[in-house]
C-alpha cells in the first residue's frame, strides 16, 4: 500500500487488505526499521534450539513450567520499566523497591502476625508512594530520572534493611496463603482452556466488529482471511502453550504466571486503546508536541513513575511468595538490571516513544531461558552474566540500527 501509486485524499483506500499485501507491508516496515517484536522472537527461537540441542531436558514441560514461574516476578517489574522507557526515562530503583515490598510482606505476616490482606496492601502501597515522590521531584525540579531513582535505590534499600531489622532474613511459613499462591497454585487444565477459548473468542469478535465498522465507514479493513489467520495463530499459540505445559507431569500454568500475563495484556490495552496510552507515546515522541496538543505532560510523567514503582512492588511480592521469604539481598544484585535488560531485549527502545507491553514478556523469557539453559549445562552464573550481557548489547544494537534506518527512511 505504501509503495503504491500516489493517491490523493479523495480516494481513501477502500480495498480490503489481502494477505500478500499484509506480508509485503510487513517487509517494508522491517526494511525501514520498524521491527517490532520480530528480533526477540528470532532470538528466543535460536536460544531454545541451541539449548535443546545441547540438553533435550530444556524443552521438557517441567523445565518450561519452571521457566515461566521463574520469569513472573522479574517480568512484572519489567512491565514498569517498559512504561518508563516509553517516555525515555528509567527507574534504577525497581530492585530495591521490590525488595522493600517483599520485606514488608514477610515482616508484616510473620513477625507482626497481621492478616494477609492488610500486609499485602501495605507491601503494595509502598510502590505508588515511592513513585509519586519520584514523579513530583521529576516534574517539579527536573531532576533526571536516572539520578533520582539512583538516590531512590539507596533510600529504598535502607528502608528494606530497616524493615527487616536485626532478623535479616525472614521465612514465610509454607502453609501461608501467599506462599501457596506463589509455589503451589496452578490453574487447572480445564480452566486454562476455558480462559484461552474466552480470549480467542473476544479477540475474534473485536477484529470482526472492527473490520465491519471500518468497512461501513469506507475505510481499509482487514480481509476475512487475514482475521482468520490472526485468530487462528493466537488460538494455536494459547492452546499449544496450555496443553504442552500440562504434558509429562508438567504442572501447567502457575497462578503467578497467569497474573503476569494478565498484567501484560492489561498494560497493552492501556497503551494502545486509551487516551492515556496515546498521551504516553506522544510524550515519548515529543514533549513539546504533546504539551502544545493540550496533554498534561507532568501528569503523564508522574503516572508512569507511579505505575513503574507499583509494578516493582507487585514483582517484589511475587518474588517473596515464590521464595517463601525475604532477606537483605531480596531484590538486590542483578534484579533491577534483569528487569531493565528484559524490557530492552524485548524490543522497547531506549530512546523513548517505541515499545510494547509484550516486550516485558518476551524479554524476560529470553533472560530466564539463558539462565535455566546454562544451569542445565552445569555452567555457573559467571557464564550467565557474560551471555546475558552479550544478548543485551545485541538488543541495543538492533534498537540503534533500526532507529537509524527509520531515520534514513524518514520514519523516525
Amino acid at each position: 500500500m505504501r509503495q503504491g501509486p500516489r493517491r490523493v485524499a479523495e480516494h481513501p483506500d477502500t480495498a480490503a487488505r489481502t494477505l500478500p499485501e499484509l506480508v509485503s507491508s510487513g517487509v517494508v516496515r522491517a526494511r525501514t526499521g520498524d521491527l517490532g517484536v520480530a528480533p526477540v522472537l528470532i532470538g528466543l527461537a535460536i536460544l531454545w534450539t541451541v539449548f535443546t540441542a545441547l540438553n533435550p531436558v530444556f524443552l521438557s514441560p517441567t523445565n518450561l513450567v519452571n521457566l515461566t514461574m521463574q520469569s513472573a516476578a522479574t517480568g512484572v517489574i519489567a512491565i514498569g520499566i517498559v512504561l518508563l522507557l516509553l517516555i525515555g526515562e528509567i527507574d534504577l530503583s525497581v530492585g530495591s523497591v521490590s525488595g522493600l515490598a517483599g520485606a514488608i510482606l514477610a515482616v508484616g505476616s510473620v513477625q507482626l502476625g497481621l492478616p494477609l490482606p492488610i500486609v499485602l496492601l501495605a507491601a503494595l502501597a509502598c510502590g505508588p508512594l515511592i513513585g509519586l515522590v519520584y514523579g513530583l521531584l521529576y516534574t517539579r525540579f527536573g531532576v533526571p530520572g536516572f539520578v533520582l531513582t539512583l538516590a531512590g535505590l539507596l533510600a529504598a534499600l535502607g528502608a528494606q534493611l530497616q524493615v527487616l531489622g536485626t532478623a535479616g532474613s525472614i521465612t514465610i511459613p509454607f502453609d501461608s496463603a501467599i506462599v501457596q499462591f506463589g509455589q503451589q497454585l496452578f490453574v487447572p487444565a480445564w480452566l486454562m482452556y476455558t480462559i484461552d477459548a474466552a480470549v480467542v473468542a473476544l479477540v475474534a469478535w473485536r477484529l470482526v466488529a472492527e473490520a465491519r465498522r471500518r468497512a461501513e465507514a469506507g475505510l481499509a479493513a482487514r480481509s476475512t482471511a487475514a482475521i482468520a489467520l490472526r485468530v487462528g495463530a493466537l488460538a494455536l499459540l494459547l492452546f499449544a502453550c496450555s496443553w504442552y505445559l500440562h504434558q509429562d507431569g508438567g504442572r501447567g500454568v502457575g497462578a503467578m504466571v497467569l497474573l503476569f500475563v494478565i498484567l501484560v495484556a492489561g498494560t497493552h490495552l492501556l497503551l494502545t486503546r486509551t487516551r492515556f496510552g496515546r498521551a504516553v507515546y506522544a510524550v515519548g515522541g515529543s514533549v513539546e508536541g504533546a504539551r502544545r496538543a493540550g496533554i498534561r505532560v507532568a501528569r503523564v510523567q508522574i503516572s508512569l513513575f507511579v505505575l513503574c514503582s507499583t509494578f516493582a512492588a507487585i514483582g517484589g511480592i511475587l518474588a517473596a511468595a515464590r521464595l517463601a521469604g525475604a532477606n537483605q539481598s531480596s531484590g538486590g544484585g542483578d534484579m533491577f538490571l534483569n528487569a531493565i535488560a528484559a524490557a530492552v531485549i524485548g524490543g522497547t527502545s531506549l530512546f523513548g516513544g517505541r515499545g510494547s507491553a509484550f516486550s516485558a514478556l518476551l524479554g524476560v523469557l529470553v533472560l530466564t531461558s539463558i539462565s535455566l539453559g546454562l544451569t542445565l549445562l552445569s555452567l555457573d552464573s559467571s557464564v550467565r552474566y557474560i551471555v546475558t550481557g552479550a544478548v543485551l548489547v545485541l538488543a541495543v544494537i538492533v534498537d540503534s540500527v533500526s532507529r537509524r534506518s527509520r531515520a534514513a527512511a524518514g520514519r523516525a
Partner: protein
Amino acid sequence: MPGPALSVARPDEHPDRILSLRGITKRFGAVRALTGVDLDVHVGEVVAIVGDNGAGKSTLVKILAGVHPADGGSIRFFGQLTPIDSPTDSLDLGIATVFQDLALCDSLDVVSNLWLGRELTRAGALDEVEMEKRSWGLLRELHARITDVRVPVASLSGGQRQTVAIARSLIGDPHVVILDEPTAALGVSQTAEVLNLIERLRDRGLGVILVSHNIADVLAVADRVVVLRLGRNNGEFRASETSSDALIAAITGAMDHSRRGGDDPE
C-alpha cells in the same frame, strides 16, 4: 477604516469582524516589542502580517495565541472585549495557532496527531474508526495530498506535515487560524500546496492570519496586508492593489506609512 486606531468598533458595527486589536503594547524589559498595534480580521479573510526581523510579528502571534499576555491595548472578539491570558483562553475563543515548528509528534501517525489531546472515545476506548473516517473527511476537504493516514508523520514531506498541522488546528472548529511562517521551509510545489490550503480555509469562512517573510506568497494569497515595522503599524494594503515594491518600501521603512495608515481597505 479611516486609519488605524481611529475607529473604535462597536459590536453591531461590523458583524463579520471576528477579531479586532487596538493599541496593543508589549514590552520585554526595556525593549518595546509592540507599540500601539492595531489589527482586524474578518470572516473569510486572509490577513497577512509582514515585516522585517524584529518587527514584532512573532510577538503579535504569541499575544493572540496566549503565550504572552499583552501589556496594553484591547482585544475584541466578535465585538466583545476579551483578554487573552493563556493558551487555553486563546483556544477557547476559537483561535488556533500553527507555529513555525509545527510541534507534531513524529513517531505518531497522521490520525493520532490530528486528534492528539482531543481523541474521540467509544465506551472508554479510543474510537480509531471514527477518528480515521473524520480525518479522511477533513483532509479531503482540504484537498490534501496525503495517501496514507496511518504512517508516522516523520515520513511525510514538509508540505504534508504543514498540512497535517493546519488540519489539526481545524479539529477544534476555530474562527481564526494563525499560520506562522507556514512556507518558510518549503520548496516551490509544496509552497503552492500550502497556499491552496490557505485559500480553502478562507472558503470555509475562517479568518486567517498569515505571518510571512515571503512577499510573493503574501501577494498570492492574502486579501489584506498589514505591515509592521519596529513594533508599530507601518501601513495596510489591499493585496490586489499593491505591488511588492510598495510592500518592501513599507517593510524597510523607505516609505513611512505610520502616520497615514496606508491604503484604506474598507
